[in-house]
């Protein structure tokens, strides 16, 4: 509770072969805020969050979580999860053909005294989670059902609920509303509102500016592997944000 920031990223560099995805990106996330990460495809958004989530290791740079520097050599997805950093990916957050209960607890099983997965307890907890998150529909669903039986919005909801269940302090949403029907988008935005209400910090990546504008407190614009600007919601309208994004691209082309 010493630092006002949930996480600080300082001067991150990362290249994949000849492609440099990050070129000195720096970003600080305040505790309890919803920050939108915006930018064109290839601007480096996804690389940035994958470093945060422990999937990639940067070539250079620092990461400070709640005031403490992270040792990247020992940093991994499970470590990120253990530190309360949880990512909800657009498509691959859930194993589609696996039952819901396995999806909630995979990688973090509830075990019995003999070291075996306690399936009964995991199913009971999953049922509670479903009823809580998906409401009446959730109560009608069984923990044994496969993910294929859920709608797109419900899948995002389950992944977000899973993050909250394990008490994540930083939740990263990677394009959670892309490819969803309008009514499903509404559900996801409600989940984002819940994250904020619970006092968690959230990074929201999306191409759908109107969704982002409703959900976020601040907007970080990424261009060519760097954070080009960070805007407060009070300082910018939706139109202004759109213009700023388009202009950013044009400036780059001139440069």
């Amino acid at each position, binding site marked *: 509770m010493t630092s006002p920031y949930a996480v600080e990223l300082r001067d991150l560099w990362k290249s994949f072969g000849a492609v440099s995805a990050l070129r000195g990106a720096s970003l600080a996330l305040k505790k309890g805020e919803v920050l939108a990460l915006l930018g064109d495809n290839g601007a480096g958004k996804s690389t940035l969050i994958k470093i945060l989530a422990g999937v990639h290791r940067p070539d250079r740079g620092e990461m400070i979580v709640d005031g403490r520097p992270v040792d990247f050599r020992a940093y991994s997805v499970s470590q990120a999860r253990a530190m309360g950093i949880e990512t909800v*990916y657009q498509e*691959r957050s859930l*194993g589609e053909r*696996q039952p819901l209960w396995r999806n909630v607890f*995979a990688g973090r099983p509830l075990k019995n005294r003999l070291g*075996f*997965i306690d399936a009964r307890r995991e199913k009971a907890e999953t049922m509670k989670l479903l009823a809580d998150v998906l409401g009446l529909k959730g109560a009608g669903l069984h923990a044994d059902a*496969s993910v*294929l039986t859920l709608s797109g919005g419900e899948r995002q909801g389950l992944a977000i609920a899973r993050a909250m269940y394990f008490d994540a302090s930083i939740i990263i949403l990677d394009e959670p509303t892309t490819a969803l029907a309008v009514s499903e988008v509404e559900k996801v935005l409600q989940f984002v509102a819940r994250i904020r209400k619970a006092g968690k910090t959230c990074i929201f990546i999306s191409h759908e500016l109107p969704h982002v504008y409703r959900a976020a407190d601040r907007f970080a614009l990424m261009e060519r592997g760097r954070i080009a600007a960070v805007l407060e919601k009070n300082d910018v309208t939706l139109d202004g944000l759109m213009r700023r994004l388009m202009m950013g691209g044009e400036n780059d082309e001139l440069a």
Partner: protein
Amino acid sequence: MNWRNYRRQTLVTLLLLALWGAFAAASPVSFGSARLYRSFMSTIPVTTILTLGMTLLIVAGEMDMSFPSVSAAAAFVFAWGYARAGFSPWAAFAAALAAGALMGWLNGLLVVVVGVPSIIATIGTQFLWRGLALLLSDGVAIPLAQVRGTSLYQVFTGRLGVWGVPAQALWAAGAAVCLGLLLNRRPFGEALLFIGDNRKTAEVMGIRVPRVRVLAFVLMGFLAAFAGMLATLELNNWWPTQGDGYMLLVFAAVFVGGTSAYGGQGTVYGSFVGSVIIGIIEAGIVSAGLTGFWTRFVHGLVIILSLSGYALFARRR
């Protein structure tokens, strides 16, 4: 209990009962005698153990085409160590299992670290280990008659109790229970399911994907060696082409048992029953008075029927 989740298991059980019923009706004398079942219990365990190992690999989205050679090469280590180098039977047995695990580990490294697709990598090692066994043995069998009197023989392939139950049947049943628990109730098994479902998902769930994949190959190598040892002890003989006949039978048993060829789905129970189905067909046909030539035809029929059954009735939704 949601019975819909057990449709595949129900289907394969019904298939076994139907086949058994048909054979028993066609030849009530042989199918009513204990001798036949004793013979089943001495031969089917080898297929069962191979099938169980293959099931876990296929669940994880991998294949192993090298297991017949791994079986033979591991059993060669035993035969050579015991009959030629004067190892104690148990030491030679342990060496054989270690050799199997090592060969499995090399398969895993080729696939996971070097990045060769498993079906191709293991076709390569299939030739490699068979070739090595042929070279080292000069292509001749190693008779092991003296193994009969040893405690090793008694423990793994002896005949137990008043009914003379072959010990390997109990080992196969025990292996099925252990591997069933491993797949369904241990994090390792859950990791196999998620890796086979979608490797990227498994990664972002914090599953150590490369490690689990390599270990799955190690387990397959170990089980192939164990199966090879059961066959060698049962017949008191090692021969250079040992294991070759199992290749297609094992894949047939896995898929008849309801495991998905796409990975992420499969049951140990289904594979166990699948291996029994594949195992009783030959004996059933012969005792029904048909020629052995029917065997392949009926195998084909059973495979096509069961897979169509899964495709039509057992979709998960």
